[in-house]
């Protein structure tokens, strides 16, 4: 299967290894992976601040970058949701609506792509230790990602998956929210990390690097042990 990577701007800048890990896993499963180099961002930062016109300009650029792609895979539930759901709204009743819908249908969050498009469950990964999974809100509630990452993690050799009580509770990132309301955002990540610690897990795994940035940022500051890993990194481990 031919697959184009969409590496969101902050992953490109801050967490490039997540993108590489995703490419490794896809190639291991037999995909032909390409990376359209003109890509930048999905436009969500502007969209979530209410600046739809600006978001539409960025989205338009995205559509041009990926117009030739058969499948687009994204290591972030949030960015995937932006393309799959909100592009349709953004381009409603405009000439770009059909294109936005077409590309939206071909765009997939990483774990959903593996399970539903590739029919994968065991990707041949190995990582000894105990992990807990954090459901990124947009993946969970906009895309319905819930069972897919767990299915994949359960097949990882040596990995014990433990559920935390607040798995579905927001980590408090929320994009600009984390900076506009830092105190609320911090309270939320405090709840999240307490729940993580209660499981005794060494790894916090998620399909959204933005949540992991928030959680890791707080864990490090608090000198707490659990280490954040993107699902792709776990699946690339062997």
């Amino acid at each position: 299967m031919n697959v184009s990577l969409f590496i969101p701007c902050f992953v490109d800048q801050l967490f490039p290894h997540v993108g590489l890990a995703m490419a490794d896993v896809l190639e291991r499963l037999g995909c032909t992976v390409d990376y359209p180099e003109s890509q930048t961002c999905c436009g969500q930062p502007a969209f979530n601040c209410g600046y739809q016109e600006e978001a539409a300009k960025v989205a338009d650029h995205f559509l041009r970058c990926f117009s030739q792609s058969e499948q687009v895979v994204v290591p972030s539930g949030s960015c995937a949701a932006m393309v799959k759901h909100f592009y349709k709204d953004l381009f409603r009743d405009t000439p770009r609506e059909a294109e936005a819908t077409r590309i939206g249908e071909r765009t997939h969050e990483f774990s959903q792509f593996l399970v539903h498009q590739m029919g994968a469950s065991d990707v041949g990964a190995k990582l000894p230790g105990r992990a807990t999974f954090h459901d990124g809100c947009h993946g969970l509630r906009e895309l319905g990602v819930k069972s897919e990452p767990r299915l994949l993690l359960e097949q990882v050799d040596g990995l014990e998956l433990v559920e935390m009580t607040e798995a579905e509770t927001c980590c408090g990132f929320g994009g600009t929210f984390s900076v506009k309301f830092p105190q609320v955002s911090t309270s939320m990540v405090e709840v999240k990390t307490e729940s993580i610690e209660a499981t005794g897990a060494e790894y916090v795994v998620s399909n959204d690097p933005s949540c992991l940035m928030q959680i890791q940022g707080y864990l490090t500051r608090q000198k707490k042990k659990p280490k954040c890993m993107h699902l792709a990194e776990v699946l690339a481990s062997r």
Partner: protein
Amino acid sequence: MSVNTVQFQTDADRMQQDGDRREFLRTALNGYILTRSGQQSKYGDYEAARTTAAAIKWQAIENLGEHLERFADNLEARGVHVHWCSDAAEARAAIVGVLKKHDAKAIVKSKCMTTEEIHLNELLEKQGYDVVESDLGEYIVQLRREAPYHFVFPAMHLKRGEIRELFERELGDAPTDDPEALTMIARQALRQKYLAADVGISGANFGVAETGMISITENEGNARLTTAMPKVHIALMGIEKVIPRFADLAVMLPMLALAGTGQRLTGYNSQFAGPRQEGECDGPEEMHVVLLDNHRTELLAHPEERDALRCIRCGACLNVCPVFKNVGGHTYGTTYQGPIGSVITPHLRGMKDWKHLSNASSLCGACTETCPVRIDLHHHLLRNRHSAAESSGGWAERMQMRGFALVMRQPWLYGIASSLGRWAHTLSRPIHGTRLDPVYAWRKTRDFPAPAPKTFQQLWRERKKDQPPRH
């Protein structure tokens, strides 16, 4: 920043420091979530029930004019006086008019958020009326002279010890911290109030257009006593509370109970079809229904946001909201707290002063997921952000967004920005953690990752060079 924004930030800061109170709230609300999910699992098809409830409220709002007229005509046919009020001032005047007509002095109230919305108690107290809230939680916050903390659980922020101290101070009576003993003190204090009141004021959870009735849901029986003993009953309701048919209650009442408190059905679900009739032995001689618009029609004018008028005020969106759990109810500074309050308040009270509420959300969507009438709450917050940006967005933010769009549309600009960012990061190291730091707000409590030595794009190019092309 508006006064309200500053107040929100200050109160949120205070709550962040008060881990004990947050833990207390969280424990209470997690208890609710557990009870609720147990009850929900007994539904034959919960999602279908939810869709039916949404459709009923939907029809009500979509044909609001006809339903309201029919409702009012049927009420009048039952001998109920109907008052149409465009705003809070008209509603207050209508209520005071009835009180004056009956030369009332003592008033007993059952829980009604709409009276909070029009600040009725303050006015009546100022005019010398003896007004008492009879719902236990409302009674407690009235004694504390503060606003309800949560529009379903008004006193949920208080610990038993605080309530004991309050009762000791205000009622001169409170032997123990025991919730039952404290409840009995309130019961005793309020019993005589029902019997002595001239007028009972209630809200309404639903107004039935088909039959001209109002429906009130409660657990304590205080609304029943408020509407059984005094000789006049006044019910204040927002115009969006009307539903088409009597039998709609067969699904609306259980859904309200489940979402509101996790119950199969709330303790008392009463339908009122007018004042005491010929042959009935008790009940008020007169019944008044005060219908309030107060900017609801402005929300109705939004084709994308009018579904917020489907709200049945169950409070479920507050109960699951991580922001509510961590800032508490008073921080909002609104009559309606939590996600639904953040959605409707800018429309009811002005976008400029209340737009910060749309931003005070991580858009996690837990509210939308739980709403029993399927209001698209978190997407409404997103739409409100858009309205705010269009009507009252700040210059600086607009410039930032224009810059963002410019850079993200031009890969070469993005490349330059990426290099500049790396430079800036290195150069700015000395100011990290100071107020000059661009990510100061973040870094105060959390580490911020440094840019990776190489971007994905650079790494990808290197990787391709090392790897022979696959066939």
